[in-house]
């Protein structure tokens, strides 16, 4: 999968850029008010014995700014779908690892115990594809304003690198993606896919469409057929999320969708463009032909991307 971020035209990069300027968090609310116990735990960890952070009139260490906005184990409230999508796209392309690289904070007003913070963040920029020692990926920069009662208390610019780890060894060890079974009954379908056309079999006896491809018609038994090209539009008819057992070529969790094409037939495929846990029945999708490459050679598969503005 990481091959996708290390070769060829940077189609992904263009898609990621579209998220620049979009909100990453809207009207987030700190899970806890600024409070003395959390300040004390922080100071203990840091070995910070400053008097400024204890007793009456204490302030919170300014460098704790981000702490008051953290989701912890219970999730990030206020985070937007746009930001989840952006991270989802990166995960999907193999950029599953993340490391924080930069943090720039300004503190216009000290935070004190009792202050309740709110925050808004914007996706400031997404870099071009970069190859670093860690691997190849993209830098994502967000900028957050932290407020107390509407008053700006801090600004927080944060940059992360989402990357596909550079691990030559495990790359080579990664099992090959399974190949479709192509025989004389299904060859026509895969020839279509190779040309980025999604072909549906049609019985020339009764006109019934069918998928997957079969030698004869289930409706009338006729053995003659031709094809119609699908529009590529469809909806998620059903889906499952694979967690266990892991299949060597794929990294769980991932969603497997049963897609109902606009023409009425259904096919099993991947749903892409949203995180696995955002796939829903009825989600509008459109076919996309995705190239895969491994030791065994190149492979094109039809997958279904969630239609913009959905999910």
């Amino acid at each position, binding site marked *: 999968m990481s091959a996708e971020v290390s070769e060829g035209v940077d189609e992904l990069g263009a898609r990621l850029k579209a998220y620049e300027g979009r909100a990453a968090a809207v009207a987030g609310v700190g899970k806890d008010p600024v409070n003395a116990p*959390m300040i004390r*735990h*922080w100071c*203990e*960890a*840091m*070995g*910070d014995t*400053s*008097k*400024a952070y204890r*007793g*009456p*009139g204490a302030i919170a*260490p*300014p*460098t*704790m700014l*981000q*702490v008051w906005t*953290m*989701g*912890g*184990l219970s999730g990030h409230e206020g985070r937007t779908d746009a930001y989840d999508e952006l991270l989802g796209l990166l995960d999907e392309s193999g950029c599953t*690892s*993340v*490391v*924080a*690289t*930069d*943090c*720039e*904070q*300004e*503190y216009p007003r*000290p935070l004190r115990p009792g202050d309740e913070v709110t925050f808004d963040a914007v996706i400031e920029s997404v870099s071009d594809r970069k190859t670093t020692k*860690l*691997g190849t990926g993209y830098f994502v920069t967000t900028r957050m304003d932290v407020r107390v009662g509407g008053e700006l208390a801090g600004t927080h610019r944060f940059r992360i690198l989402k990357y596909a*780890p*550079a*691990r030559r060894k495990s790359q080579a060890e990664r099992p090959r993606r399974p190949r479709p079974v192509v025989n004389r009954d299904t060859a026509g379908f895969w020839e279509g896919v190779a040309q980025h056309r999604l072909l549906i079999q049609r019985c020339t006896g009764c006109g019934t469409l069918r998928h997957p491809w079969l030698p004869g018609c289930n409706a009338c038994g006729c053995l003659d057929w031709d094809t119609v090209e699908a529009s590529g539009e469809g909806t998620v008819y059903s889906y499952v999320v694979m967690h266990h057992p892991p299949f060597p070529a794929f990294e769980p969790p991932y969603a497997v969708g049963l897609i109902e094409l606009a023409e009425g037939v259904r096919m099993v495929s991947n749903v892409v463009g949203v995180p696995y846990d955002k796939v829903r029945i009825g989600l509008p999708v459109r076919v996309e032909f995705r190239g895969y490459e491994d030791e065994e050679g190149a492979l094109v598969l039809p997958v279904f991307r969630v239609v913009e503005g959905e999910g």
Partner: protein
Amino acid sequence: MGSETRAHRPVAGAELPPLEIPITRTLIVAGAIASRDYQDVHHDAELARQKGSPDVFMNILTTNGLVGRYITDHFGPSAVLRKVAIRLGAPNYPGDTMVLTGRVEEVDGDTATVRVVGANAIGRHVTGTVTVSVPAPSAVSDGEAAS
């Protein structure tokens, strides 16, 4: 009493005494949890290795906190951090030691810009700039400074 611990007035060109931080597993985990950062690479060595890292490593919030502490330890509790901007390089892994050093680059009235570097055995863990205001002793009441 308080005035003794905040005796350092920023002077352009002055070097801050280095601060050695032993990078223990405890520091890494305590820092991550105190900052509510539950990313597995900061507390679970096995999962960190699966992600290509040799061990758990310090999170950026802890680094940020240590940089802030380095500055306020030096300038005293009346010093006010205005801005902390850091960039991470070589990770802080358990067993290493990070040595923080700083140099006052610029002073404008009460406000100084300090360039900070935190070096470990692999290289530069952090480079950054801190803007800090250090009120003149007369501007701070004794009670406030020493309480």
